[in-house]
C-alpha cells in the first residue's frame, strides 16, 4: 500500500455519499456517533410473556436432530437440541441454533411468483410478479395436462435433493406413476454420496449408507469423511467423540485420512494426508498387512485349514487351502491383486510414509472392534467404486459387520399405509401409455448411460441439450439447486433457459433466478413434516416437524403443493389426490402405524408424536458375535440365524456372504468392461486403479463442506459468513478463502490474501488465497458452500462458485459425480 493509500484509507465514494444522503433516517442503525451526545439511559424491556416450546427437526444437514423451538410473544427466538431425542440429546452442531435466521430471512419469497422477463441468465432479473396460489397451481396443472394429452408426459421431470420423508419425497414416486413420467422423481443421490452406497451394495448387498455403533468401537479409521465437520449425523458424531475420547475406557483410537489438515485430523491420534483419489491404495496396503501378519478376524472371515498363514508378499495362495466363512473371494483377491499391494508401494502412490501405513494397519488389525468408514473424499473419483470396496472390505477382514462396535444398516420406521392406494387410480395411460417406452432422461439404468447407478441427475443437462434421449419440457425442483451445486453448473444454466422451470424453495436461489414460476415452500419451522432417520444406529427412528408459528408469508408446504397440483390433473389421478386430501392426512396415516409398534418413549399416535417429536424402537434386531449371527428375541441376541436368514436380511448378496469378489459387478462385467476398458478378470474385486483426474491443470482442487455448511440453507446467514473457515480465514476476510501451500504461492508470487485465478478446461473463477501449511503442496482447498451468485443479499459473493471449473465426470459404475477429482491451474489475478 502506498503512503497516500495508507494515509487516506477513504471509503467515501460517490455511491456511498448518495446512499448516505438517502439513509440519514437510518443513521441510528449504522451506529451511534452523534446520538450519544445526548445519552439516553436504556431501560430494561418489560418482561416477556409465556414461552411455548414445540418440537421440530433441524433442517441444515441430513442428521435430522430433534429440536425444541422456543417461541415467546410470537417470536421464535431459540432453538435447542431436544433432550429426549436420541440423535441430538439436547445438543446441537454450530448450524442448529442459527435456524431462526432461515425462518426470518429477509430475502424469502413472500408468496408465489411468476416470471415476466422472458430472458434468462445470471444477469437477467426475472422481474417476478406476485400471483395467487390458484393461478400458480393452475398454471402448473395446465402444463402437465397438456403434456399428457400430447403423449409427452415423460418430458416433465421433478428433481429433488434433501427429501425428508414420506410426506414430501415419499409422495413423488406415486405422482410419477399416476402421471406417467419416469423422471418423477429423480433424486440427487449421484451428486450426493452414491459412491459409498454402491460400494456397499457390491460387497454386502445393502444399497445404503451404514449405521454405526461407534460408542463400542475401540479403533476408528476414517477415509475422506470429516467426522468432526460434516459427516452425518454430525451433531451425534461429536457427542460420540466426547465420550470415546474423553470418558470411555479404553479411549478409542482414531486415524483419519484426508487431503488437508482439518479439525478431525488434528484431533485424531494419527493424521494421514493422502494424495486425492488414492485412498484405495492405502486401504489395499492395510489389507495386505492384515493378511500377511495374520491379523484378520478368523471367526468371521475363516482361516487356513491347517491354521498356517500362507499370505506372503508376492506369493499366490491356493484357494483350496483356505476355508472361507462369511467372505467370498478372499484368496482370489489376494492372488489377483492384493499380494503386490505393499505399504511401500502404497507410500509411493499416496505420498504417505511407509512407516505410518504399517502402523495404521497394525493398529486397525489388532484392535477390536474396529470400524473403517469412508465417504465422498474417497469415492468422488473415477476409481471411487474400488476405493470404496477396498475400504469396506477392511470391515469384513476384522469382523465388524453387524458386530457390537461395528457397522450395520438402518431399519425403517413402522409407518402406516396411506389411506389411498396408487394402483386403484391408474388409468390406461398410467399403466401402459407411450411414456413407458422412454428411458429416464438421466439414463440411469440404461446401458448407454449408467447401468448400475441409482440416479444420474448430473447428466440431465447434457442429455437434454443433446436431445439424447430427449428434451425435457418442464422441470420442477424440490430442495435441490444443481444450477449452483452440480459439477459444470453452467451447463444447467443453458438447460434451464430452454425449459419451463418451477422452483419450490422459499429462497431466491440460483434455480429461482432461472425459474418461470416460484411456488415457495414454508421454511422448516413452519412445517408439519415427517423424517425417518438417516442411517444412525440401526434401530428405527422417525421424527416430526411441528409448526412453531403460523406461516409468516403466503407460502405452502411442498407436500400440499404437490397434492394440490395432483388434484388438478385430469382423470383418476385427480381423484387420488382429492381422496388423499392434504399433508396432515398423510402424517396421520403414517402415525397410525405406531399404534401396533409404540415407541420406547410412549409415542403411539399422531398426537403423542407431535408432543414428543420423535418415535423410535430399540434395539437393532441383529448381531454378529464371533462369526455367528443372532436375532433379538426380546431379551437378548439369542436366536441363532440360519445362513438363508442372514442372506435375506443382512448379507444380501448372491452368495449370502460378504463378496470381496462381487457377483453384482460380475454379472455386469461385459458392460463394465465395454464402458471402462477394465479387465474382466479383475473388475469385480477391489483393485487399484489410477484415478482419471479432470480439468487439465496441475494442482488438485478439492471443494469440501465445512462445519457451517448447511446444504445450501446456510448461504444467506450473516453469522455463518462471519465465521467461515476459522482455521485459515480471517475476520473480515473478503470471501471464503482458498487454501494454497506456500511452495505453490511463492513460486507464483501469491501472498496471503491476494486475489487468485483458478482455471480448468471448463472455465475460470476468482478467489482469495490463504497461504498455509495446512494443505498438501499439490492441492488447493476451497469450500464450495459460499460461492453463491444468488440466494440472498448476504449469500452473493461470499465465496467462489467452484462448479464453474469442476468438470462433470462420473464414476461409470456408481454414477457418483467426481467432485474432488478436478485439477486446475492457479495464478495471481
Amino acid at each position, binding site marked *: *500500500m502506498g503512503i497516500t*493509500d*495508507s*494515509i*487516506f*484509507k*477513504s*471509503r*467515501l465514494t460517490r455511491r456511498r455519499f448518495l446512499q*448516505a*444522503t438517502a*439513509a*440519514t433516517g437510518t*443513521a441510528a442503525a*449504522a*451506529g*451511534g*456517533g*452523534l*446520538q*450519544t*451526545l*445526548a*445519552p439516553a439511559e436504556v431501560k430494561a424491556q418489560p418482561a416477556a410473556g409465556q414461552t411455548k416450546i414445540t418440537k421440530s427437526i433441524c433442517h441444515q444437514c441430513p442428521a435430522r436432530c430433534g429440536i425444541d423451538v422456543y417461541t415467546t410473544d410470537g417470536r421464535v427466538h431459540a432453538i435447542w437440541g431436544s433432550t429426549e431425542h436420541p440423535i441430538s440429546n439436547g445438543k446441537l452442531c454450530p448450524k442448529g441454533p442459527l435456524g431462526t435466521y432461515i425462518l426470518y430471512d429477509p430475502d424469502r419469497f413472500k408468496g408465489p411468483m411468476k416470471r415476466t422477463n422472458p430472458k434468462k441468465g445470471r444477469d437477467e432479473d426475472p422481474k417476478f410478479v406476485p400471483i395467487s396460489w390458484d393461478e400458480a397451481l393452475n398454471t402448473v396443472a395446465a402444463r402437465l395436462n397438456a403434456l399428457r394429452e400430447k403423449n409427452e408426459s415423460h418430458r416433465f421431470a421433478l428433481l429433488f435433493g434433501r427429501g425428508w420423508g414420506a410426506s414430501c419425497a415419499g409422495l413423488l414416486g406415486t405422482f410419477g406413476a399416476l402421471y406417467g413420467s419416469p423422471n418423477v422423481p429423480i433424486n440427487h443421490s449421484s451428486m450426493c454420496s452414491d459412491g459409498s452406497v454402491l460400494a456397499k451394495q457390491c460387497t454386502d448387498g445393502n444399497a445404503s449408507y451404514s449405521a454405526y455403533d461407534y460408542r463400542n468401537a475401540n479403533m476408528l479409521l476414517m477415509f475422506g469423511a470429516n467426522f468432526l465437520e460434516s459427516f452425518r449425523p454430525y451433531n451425534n458424531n461429536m457427542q460420540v467423540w466426547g465420550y470415546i475420547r474423553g470418558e470411555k475406557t479404553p479411549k478409542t483410537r482414531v486415524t483419519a485420512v484426508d487431503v488437508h489438515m482439518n479439525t478431525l485430523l488434528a484431533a485424531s491420534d494419527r493424521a494421514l494426508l493422502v494424495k486425492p483419489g488414492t485412498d484405495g491404495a492405502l486401504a489395499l496396503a492395510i489389507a495386505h498387512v492384515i493378511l500377511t501378519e495374520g491379523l484378520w478376524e478368523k471367526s468371521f472371515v475363516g482361516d487356513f485349514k491347517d491354521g498356517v498363514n500362507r499370505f506372503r508378499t508376492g506369493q499366490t495362495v491356493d484357494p483350496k487351502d483356505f476355508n472361507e466363512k462369511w467372505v467370498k473371494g478372499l484368496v482370489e483377491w489376494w492372488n489377483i491383486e492384493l499380494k503386490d499391494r505393499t505399504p511401500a508401494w502404497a507410500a509411493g502412490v499416496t505420498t504417505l510414509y511407509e512407516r505410518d501405513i504399517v502402523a495404521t494397519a497394525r493398529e486397525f488389525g489388532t484392535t477390536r472392534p474396529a470400524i473403517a468408514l469412508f465417504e465422498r473424499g474417497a469415492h468422488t473419483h473415477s476409481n471411487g467404486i474400488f476405493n470404496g470396496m477396498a475400504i469396506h472390505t477392511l470391515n469384513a477382514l476384522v469382523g465388524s459387520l453387524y458386530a457390537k462396535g461395528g457397522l450395520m444398516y438402518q431399519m425403517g420406521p413402522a409407518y402406516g399405509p396411506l389411506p389411498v392406494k396408487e394402483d386403484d387410480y391408474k388409468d390406461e395411460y398410467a399403466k401402459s401409455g407411450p411414456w413407458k417406452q422412454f428411458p429416464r432422461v438421466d439414463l440411469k439404468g440404461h446401458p448407454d448411460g449408467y447401468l448400475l447407478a441409482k440416479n444420474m441427475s448430473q447428466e440431465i443437462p447434457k442429455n437434454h441439450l443433446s436431445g439424447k434421449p430427449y428434451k425435457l419440457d418442464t422441470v420442477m425442483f424440490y430442495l435441490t439447486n444443481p444450477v449452483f451445486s452440480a459439477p459444470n453448473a453452467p451447463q444447467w444454466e443453458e438447460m434451464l433457459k430452454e425449459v419451463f422451470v418451477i422452483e419450490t424453495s422459499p429462497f431466491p436461489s440460483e434455480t429461482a433466478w432461472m425459474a418461470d414460476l416460484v411456488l415457495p415452500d414454508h421454511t422448516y419451522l413452519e412445517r408439519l413434516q415427517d423424517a425417518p432417520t438417516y442411517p444412525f444406529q440401526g434401530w428405527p427412528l422417525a421424527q416430526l416437524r411441528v409448526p412453531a408459528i403460523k406461516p409468516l408469508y403466503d407460502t405452502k408446504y411442498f407436500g400440499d403443493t404437490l397434492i394440490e397440483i395432483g388434484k388438478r390433473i385430469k382423470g383418476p389421478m385427480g381423484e387420488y389426490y382429492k381422496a388423499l386430501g392434504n399433508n396432515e392426512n398423510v402424517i396421520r396415516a403414517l402415525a397410525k402405524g405406531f399404534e401396533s409398534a409404540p415407541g420406547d418413549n410412549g409415542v403411539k399416535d399422531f398426537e403423542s408424536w407431535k408432543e414428543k417429536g420423535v418415535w423410535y424402537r430399540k434395539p437393532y434386531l441383529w448381531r454378529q458375535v464371533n462369526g455367528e449371527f443372532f436375532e433379538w428375541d426380546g431379551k437378548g441376541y439369542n436366536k441363532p440365524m440360519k445362513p438363508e436368514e442372514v442372506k435375506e436380511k443382512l448379507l444380501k448378496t448372491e452368495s449370502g456372504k460378504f463378496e470381496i469378489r462381487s457377483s453384482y459387478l460380475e454379472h455386469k462385467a461385459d458392460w463394465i468392461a465395454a464402458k471402462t476398458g477394465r479387465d474382466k478378470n479383475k473388475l469385480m474385486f477391489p483393485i487399484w486403479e489410477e484415478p482419471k483426474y479432470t480439468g487439465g491443470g496441475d494442482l488438485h482442487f478439492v471443494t469440501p463442506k465445512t462445519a457451517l455448511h448447511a446444504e445450501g440453507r446456510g448461504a444467506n446467514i450473516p453469522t455463518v459468513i462471519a465465521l467461515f473457515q*476459522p*482455521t*485459515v*480465514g*480471517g*475476520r*473480515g476476510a473478503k470471501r471464503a478463502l482458498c487454501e494454497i501451500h506456500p511452495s505453490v504461492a511463492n513460486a507464483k508470487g501469491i501472498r*496471503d490474501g491476494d486475489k487468485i485465478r483458478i482455471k480448468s478446461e471448463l472455465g475460470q473463477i476468482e478467489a482469495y488465497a490463504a497461504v498455509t501449511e495446512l494443505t498438501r503442496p499439490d492441492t488447493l482447498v476451497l469450500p464450495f458452500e459460499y460461492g453463491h451468485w444468488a440466494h440472498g443479499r448476504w449469500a452473493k459473493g461470499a465465496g467462489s462458485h467452484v462448479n464453474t471449473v469442476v468438470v462433470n465426470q462420473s464414476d461409470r459404475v456408481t454414477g457418483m459425480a467426481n467432485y474432488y477429482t478436478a485439477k486446475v491451474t492457479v495464478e495471481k489475478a
Partner: protein
Amino acid sequence: MSAATLPRAGSAGFAIGVVGFLVTGAWVIWQLMTQGHAAYNTTSNGLMWGLPIVTYDFLLMSSCGAALTAALGIVFGVKDFEPLARRATWIALALLVGGVLALFLELGNPIRSLYAIPLNFQVKAPLFWKVLAVGVYALCLLLMAANWIAKRDAGKPGGVATIGAIAALAVVFTGALMFATLSMRPFWHSGEVPVMILVEALLGGMAFTLLAAQLAGGTDAQAAGHAARWVAPLAFLTLLFVAGRAIVGLASNLDGLQVWNKVVGSVWFWIEIAFLVVALWLTATAANRASGGMQTLAMILVIVALAIGKYEFVIAGQLVPLFKGSWVHGLIRYAPSATEWVLAAMSAFLAYAVYAFGASRFRLGG
C-alpha cells in the same frame, strides 16, 4: 513586539482557524451522522485506540507540557520562561480544547463521561484519576485565563499556577499509567514510560510555545530563541528513550515486542529520529538559537517528531493481536480512515482558532 501588527495577524489566524474548524467539522459530523463510529477504522480485532486517541493524547500531553513550560517561569522562577508564560498558558488552554474535542468525538457516550467518571469514583482506574486531574487542570487554566491572561496588566497568578502545574503533572503521570500498568502489553508495560511521556509532554508543550513566540516576532521571538537551550536536553532525553526502548524491544523475545521490527522498519521512525537530531543540533548552540528561522524550523521538527512518536506509541502497542488466533494472523493492519484524519485536522484547527483568538484579543507576550 509591534502593537500595531499583532492584532491583525491574530484576527487573520482566528478566521483561518474558525473556517478550517467549521469545514472539517461539517465533514466529520456528516460522516458520524451517516455511519456513526463505523467511519473510523478501529476494530474489536485489537486496534481500539486509533488516530482520534493519538490526536487527543498528543494535544493533551502537549497542553500539560505547555502549562509546565509556563510553570517553569512563574512557579519555579526560571527566568528564560518568564516572558513566555502567558503565551504558554494560553497555548495550554488551546491545545486542551483541541484535544478534548478529539476525545469527545471518539467516545461512545461523551456527555455521560462528564458525570459518570467523577460520580462513580473508581479509584482503581488511572483514567479516573486522570479525569479528576484534568478537571482541576482545566479549572486552573480557565482561572488563569480569566484573571491573568485576559487582563493585560495583571501580575503573576500565584497559587492557581502552582496547583495547575501539579495538576498538569498529575494528568501526564496518570495518563501514562493507563498504558504502563497493562501487564499484558510489554510494549507499554514498563516503569520508564511515565517518565518518557513526561519528557515528551514537556518538550512538546515547550516546542508549541516557542514556535508561537517565534511567529509573534519581536521580543517574544528573542525570548524564545533564548529559552530554546532547554529544548536541546529534552530532545536528547527523548532520543535516549526512543533508542533505549527500540533496542530493548528488538533484543527481547517477549511476545508483543516483535512489533518493534515493524516500527523500526518504517520510514516514519527514522524521520522522527532525524527530526529530533536536527532539532537538537539547532537548539544546542547559541548561534543557531539566535536565528529566528532556524528556531521556527527546529520547533516544527520537534512537533512533527513527537506526533509521529505518539502515533507509534499508541498504535504499535496494539498491533500485536491478543488472543485472536487465526482470525487475525500476523500483525493487525491499521491505517486511519479519512474521517480520522479530518478529525485530527479539526482538532488542530480548533486549537489554532482558540490560540489565535487569544493572540488577537489578549496580551500573550512578556
